[in-house]
Every structure is written in C-alpha cells, then in structure tokens.
C-alpha cells in the first residue's frame, strides 16, 4: 500500500509549527493560572493585562511609561540569556546543569573582587579583566561538578546543587561582616572601580529627557550585546565546531561516542567548564552593568533557576533561548506591575513559571495533539529534554543487585 505523501510545507511555516509546543505550553500555563485566579476571586484579565503592561509596555492603563517597562524587561532579560545558554549547552551533552546560579554567583564575586581591588585601572584593562575573571570563576565552579561526574560518576544535579549552596554562603561570608564589606553593618561591598563598569546604552543623565523620563532610568547596558553575542557563540560552538559535534554526540549516546574515539569524560569536563564560563560571565555582567557592587541580594537570587525554564522553553536553541528569556524577563517586570496595579501577589508569577515548566516537561501539548485529530505534526517533535538527563547509569557502571 502506498504511503500517503506528506505535503512539503515552506520552511517558515514548518518553523512556526515547531514553535507550537513551547507556545502552547505557555498558553496552557496561563490558562491554568487564570483558573487559579478565578477560583480565588481575582480577575484574570486585569491580572494578565497588568502583566503584559509591565512586561512589554503594551496596554498600560495606569500611567506606566512603556519605554521604561521595556527597558526593565531587557535588564532582566540579559542575564537570563547567558545563563540559559549555560544550562542549554550541557543539556546537549546529556548533563543537567542546575548549578547555573552558583556559577553566576562565583562570577559576580570574582568580578566584584577584581573590580574593587584593582579599581583604579582604566576601562580597556579592567573591564575585560573583570569579565574574564567572572568566566574563570564560573568555569571553576562548574568544573568541580564536571570533574566529579567524569571521574566517579557523581550525578551533576546533586553536585551542582551543593555548589550553589556553598556559593551562597561564601557570598554571605564575604559581605556580611566579611572582608569585602563596605562598612560594618552595610551588608554590601565597596563599589567597583569605574573602569569595570559597563556603559548604559543611553547616557546616564538625570536631566536629559527621553520618552518623557530622565535618560538615566533606562538601565539597559552594554551587557545586552554581550548576552546576544554569547547566544551566537553558543550556536556557533554547538553546530559549527568539532567540539560541538562531540558534545551532541555524547548527548545522543555515550556508548556510540566512546566507540567513535571521543573521550566522554573529557567532553563532560570541557562542557561543564564552558557552561560555567557562560554563567560566570552573566554574573560578572550583572555586577559590571547593573549593580556595580556586591550585595546580599544574590543570596536569594533565582536567575540560575529561571535559566532552566528558559533553556527548556527555548528548546535548547539560541533563538529559542533569546525568546524564552524575553518572556521570563517580561514576567519578572510584569509581576511587580501586576501587584501595584491589580493588587495581585507577584507570587502568581512563580506559579505561572512552574506551570510552564510542567507543561514543557510533560509535553502536555504533544499529548493533547495526539488526542485531538488533525493537530498532530507530521515531523518528529524537537527534543525537549535529553533522554540522558536521567540516565546517570551511563557514566558510572552500577552493579545491579537484587538481593
């Protein structure tokens, strides 16, 4: 019997269909969130309207300045791209990098320390130095997990979680009553030298008025370019280099890769080092571009965890990560406006993020598509999470005992 021919759709449409799963997951999450709101007596439309206003500057009814909202979203977006990459890259090798937060912290600490101690150096020297320092620190932080995985098969999920906590407490040690503290009791560090600062895209002037507000309120900084370059480097690395090929090969099947002569342990370590470097860079960029000092806020920072959702939602591709980071940046901005305008706790944003994660992880959309006739895609769905994320059995050789 002749198989029916699938019509060849133009690439643009095919790519749009590829968006179906992540887009559907987000919509599903919002629908469930809306149900929760309705059940607890709030109006989902007002809530989401405020969310969209705060995230994208669209449809603001309470006098918010759209340019300001967009600017805030972009500032939140920037670290999410780089950390999203830091999570997505190891995914391709079958590794789960939950330690992006700790690596980001390591990067911030390094950047701040160098920026403070060498604060008198001029920009052309200091700025690259602090960014590099951040990358090295992040790489080392992830490297611990990479080495443990490669040598004794320790699951990177656990080791990276542990390293996260170590980083948190180390940060606290440094700035609450510790060596980097500005003055006793301030819980923050000295400011970094001016040479370590990343310039804002608009002049930081209180008197110049742009879009109705002083130019200094738009905090979008040069880190935006760094983040986009990082995403491009990630794509290039993964698809156009032999290392990238090895990484993807290891992710597909460690056995086959070993037979092909690729050293799995070496690839694991290198992948984690690079991922850590990305995260560390994100942390350094935050210090250099936004904070200009190290504060206790990093103790409870969640960027590295949001990055996991960003990497998944973005289906592990550079463009996807950028779009997903934009969404999460918008959710972050939007949450505050949602609370200020609609009086709804910004914790709802956390609930929405969790629902998005569930949706993607469980591929609810795919399953719905299976059930509803006509919705099923003809092509194979893109990989949403590497199959090897759970098979830590590959790297170690466990004795299966059933006594």
């Amino acid at each position, binding site marked *: 019997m002749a198989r029916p021919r699938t019509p060849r759709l133009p690439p*643009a449409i095919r790519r749009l269909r590829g968006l179906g799963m992540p887009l559907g997951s987000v919509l599903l999450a919002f629908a469930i969130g809306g149900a929760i709101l309705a059940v607890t007596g709030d109006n989902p439309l007002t809530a989401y309207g405020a969310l969209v206003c*705060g995230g*994208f*500057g*669209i449809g*603001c009814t*309470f*006098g*918010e*300045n*759209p*340019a*300001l909202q*967009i600017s*805030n979203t972009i*500032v*939140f977006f920037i670290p999410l791209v780089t950390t999203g990459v830091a999570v997505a890259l190891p995914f391709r090798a079958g590794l789960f990098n939950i330690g992006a937060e700790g690596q980001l912290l390591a990067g911030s600490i390094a950047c701040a320390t160098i920026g403070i101690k060498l604060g008198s150096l001029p920009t052309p020297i200091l700025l690259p130095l602090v960014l590099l320092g951040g990358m090295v620190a992040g790489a080392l932080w992830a490297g611990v997990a990479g080495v443990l995985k490669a040598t004794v098969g320790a699951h990177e999920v656990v080791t990276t979680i542990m390293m996260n906590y170590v980083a948190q407490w180390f940060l606290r040690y440094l700035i*609450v009553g510790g060596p980097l503290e*500005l*003055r006793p*009791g*301030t*819980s*923050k560090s*000295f*400011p970094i030298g001016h040479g370590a600062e990343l310039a804002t895209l608009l002049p930081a002037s*209180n008197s110049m008025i742009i*879009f*109705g*507000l*002083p130019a*200094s*309120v738009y*905090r979008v900084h040069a880190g935006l370019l760094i983040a*986009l370059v990082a995403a491009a480097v990630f794509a290039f690395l993964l698809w156009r280099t032999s290392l990238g090929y090895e990484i993807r090969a290891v992710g597909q099947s460690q056995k086959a890769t070993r037979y092909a002569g690729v050293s799995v342990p070496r690839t694991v370590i290198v992948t984690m080092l690079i991922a850590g470097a990305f995260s560390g860079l994100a942390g350094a960029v935050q210090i250099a571009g*936004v904070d*200009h*000092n190290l*504060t*206790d*806020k*990093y103790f*409870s*920072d*969640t960027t590295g965890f949001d990055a996991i959702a960003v990497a998944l939602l973005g289906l592990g591709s*550079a*463009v996807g990560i*950028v779009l997903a980071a*934009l969404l999460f940046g918008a959710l*972050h*901005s939007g*949450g*505050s*406006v949602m*609370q*200020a*305008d609609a*009086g709804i*706790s*910004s914790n709802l944003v956390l609930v929405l993020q969790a629902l998005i994660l569930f949706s993607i992880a469980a591929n609810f959309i795919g399953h719905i598509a299976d059930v509803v006739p006509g919705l099923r895609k003809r092509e194979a769905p893109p990989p949403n999470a590497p199959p090897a994320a759970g098979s830590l059995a590959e790297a170690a050789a466990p004795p299966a005992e059933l006594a």
Partner: protein
Amino acid sequence: MGHSRLRLVGLVAVALMLVAACGGTSTGGGTATKQYKIGLVTDIGGLNDKSFNHLAYLGLQKAIQDFGVKGDVTESKSGDDYIPNLTNFASKGYDLVIGVGFLMQEAIGTVSGQFPNVHFAIIDGAGTDANGNDLQHANVASLLFREQDAGAMVGVIAGMLEKQGKAKKNQGVISAVGGVSIPPVNRYIAGYKWAAAMEDPGIKVLIGYSNDFTDPAKCKGVAQSQINQGADILFQVAGGCGLGVLQAAGQAGVYSVGVDADQKDADPSVIASALKKVDVATYTAIQDVVKGTFSGGVLTFSIANDGAGYALDNLTLPADIQAEVTKVQNEIKAGTLTPPADIPA
C-alpha cells in the same frame, strides 16, 4: 539559517522601538479634589514578614482610612526589584514613594535624583550613593529609629525582674536572639544589654543569632540552647523566625519579649514588646505630604517623640519596677541617659 534568525531579532527590535515611540506617559486628568497617590515598596520579606514591611503596610492602611489617599504596594522579590519598583511609582507621578529597609538606600538615592519632584521616604536608611554616603536630596525623608531606646526599656524590665528574683528561674541570666548580625538588630540588643546591666550589674546576657529571619524552627533551637544555659527572659529580634523564640519560652515556662510590634498575642509567655513604630513613621510621612509639610532630611523616631517605645503584655509589673521603667524613660527623653547603638562588651 543565520539570515532568518537575524531578521527575527531585527524585527523584534524594531517592533519594540515602535511600541516605545508610540507609547508615552498618560497624564491623569485634572480632578477637582486632589487624591494623593502613595506607593509602598517593601523589602524581600514581603508583607507577611511579621516585622517592618507589615508595619509599614498598617501605617499606609491607616492613612488611607484617615486621608482617603490611594495606596498601592509592590513587594520586592529580590534586590533586583528595588530600582524598578521605586521607579514605576515615581514615573507614574505618585506623590510619595516609600521604601522599606536599609538595603534600599542606594536605590532610593538613585531614583530620588531622577525624580526631584516626587517625594520619597525610606525606613531605616537614607538615600545614599554607592559608597554609603547620604546624598541629602531635598525630596527624601530619611526615617530612622533608635531601636536601642526600645531595647533599653525592655532591658530595664528584664534587669529589674532578675535582680528582684521575680523571673522564672532567677539564675541571673537573660538572653537575646537576633536574626542576622546587622545594625537594626544589634541596636535593639545593645539597648537591652546596656539597660539590664545598669539595673542588675551582675547579670549575664547571652546573645545568639539564628542566621535566619523566616524559619521559626531555627530561632527555637537557639532559644532552647539559651534556656538550657539558664536564660529565663528571652528577647526576640528576628522577625518571623523570632516567633520560635516566643514559642520556646512558652513551652519552657519562662518569659519572652516581642519586637517591632506588640506581640502580646503571639504567645502567653510574652511579658513585654520593644516597639519600633514603623507604622507611625509611615503614617507621619504620608500625613506630611497630604498636609504639605513634607521636608527632606532625617527624621529620628525615638522614645522622645514616641516613635519607639515598649508595651506591657501578659504580665502585671510590680509597682516599683514600673516606676523604675518610667524613670528611665524620662531620663532617656531628657537626654540624661543615652542607650548605646553598639552592643556593649
């Protein structure tokens, strides 16, 4: 593949710029009677922190009731949110933007410089620069508290009870449990220790930290250790975590002291509370704006102006102790006695 992706990014960028250009601030229409708009930005503890954020909110509520102002709140989820949250209110032309907590100092310093026509107030701090220096902007009211005054009052009570053997174990040991070793916490403890030692020179004051402001179990553990060392009056300075101190005291049958707000109902063992009237300060700031008497600069809330104080809770003090408390209170008000801001050795 690279081409179309670049185009996508370009499209997004153009779209954003278009939206931004077409947008713009909408100004509120002129209304006959002015309704003042107040924005409150809390710290990361959230409105349920059983401490300053909550108290500031109460002050706002009272102002809404009394003056009919419009009050909106945003809880900061992290330090990243301070500047955006403050800027949001300021850019919408709110009359007063209040930040809670000294961690927001730099943010207030920055935003108040960008919006010189908006009034700002900050609890527990000033608008500072990156080096911690007060920028002294004219539009910023710095609401500071002398927690040591409040700590001293309850310290007097504790010291007298120990000295007269009217506490529970009477081993001459009292204690304090702080959240984290930071100035707002330590000022309370400083006043407490200083006053207790003044009343009962031989008294031993144990000071421990839970390293936490939210988990009551952690504070309970520290409190229990202090109780094992003989402490029978425990002063909690740890926000939501500190409720564990009060609970531990109740279970052990000793006394405890609440903090910030009157914690009489938190546990029957609470005999007094050291008050930091953040609600009064918030209310005052709003009142100043409504009445047009707002002025920048430092406003210190202490015993002298009833911005700090104490409350008696589930214990009737003997008359002589009450008299001593009142005496010390008057002396602090008059300035003849000054509780220290740093914990005495």
